[in-house]
């Protein structure tokens, strides 16, 4: 399971070029709250991570289309996996 702070930082980093860092961070906080994901816990469950990324992707679809959004989601998962492996 990824560390919560690592997962959130990675999501924000990947999404910032599209949404801007301020919105990426604000959206991460808002989505975590809505999904009941504790941001202060040490680790984020796989279910929570998938739900959070899915929530981001739903919004991103509207700006960049489904194809690009899917590519961004893959990028997030790959970046989190790489961070976990390092």
């Amino acid at each position: 399971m990824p560390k919560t702070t690592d997962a959130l930082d990675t999501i924000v980093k990947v999404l910032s070029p599209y949404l801007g860092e301020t919105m990426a961070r604000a959206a991460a906080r808002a989505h975590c709250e809505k999904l009941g994901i504790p941001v202060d816990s040490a680790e984020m469950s796989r279910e929570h991570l998938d739900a959070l990324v899915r929530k981001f992707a739903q919004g991103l679809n509207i700006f960049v289309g489904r194809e690009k959004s899917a590519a961004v989601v893959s990028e997030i998962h790959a970046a989190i996996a790489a961070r976990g492996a390092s």
Partner: protein
Amino acid sequence: MTRTARTDAAFLVVALGCVAPFLLPLAGLSGGDAGEQARLYVGNLSKLSFLVLAARWAVRSAARFEADNPMRGTWRMMAAGLLTFAAGQAVLVIYQVLLRLPSPFPSLADAFFVLSYPFLLAALLRAIRAYGETGYPIGSVRARVGTAVVVAAAAALVGYPLLRPIVAAPAAPLEMFLNVAYPVLDLGVLIPVVILLRIAARFRGGEVWKVWAGLLAGFLLMCVGDILFAHFNAMGREDLEPLVDVTYILSYAALARGALGQYQLLTS
């Protein structure tokens, strides 16, 4: 330098190059016959080119969005508005560049220009609704309604003194109608533009912001240009003519930049 930064720089350089001939008279220099010719050709053709490019990228962006994406409708309406607007500009080009005649006012061009507003307004309203559907923290519906009320009140306060001398100036009924209609339609468009600006500002630093910053700057400049044009036309303020052209050229360049930004966002 990133591709976006290069695109921004290219647009800026081209737009500034296009407005350069109009800066001479604003600085008190006419530039003689060459200056007149440059303003005629560069002014007309740059406006038409930027509008055609904006419409083209809007059409292509709409086509790239999936059928169930709310932005598809937004970009279709934007494309329809920009195409109609470009048709109006093409009429002006035919008069001024091909026939070498001063374009009459009103003319067929005005029919296209007026017709474009419902499409553009629909595009902006659809964009606000689409932003709401993202689920991102873009502010409450109540805040958006509040913004609309404040902007409408401010537009009425600013619009009344701006329009009073235009209404008082003698003009044929259709001319008078258009002199008033353009600024009024612009002020109407300004309401969703300001709401969108407030929303889009939350995306500062990202590509989404750049798309909407371009489009919204374009609409704001169009509003300024139409108000200047109404004063120029109704009150014979010929000194305003170069400034009108400058604002229109920059407006259409910004619209084209915004539309290209969306297309790049979908395809890069």
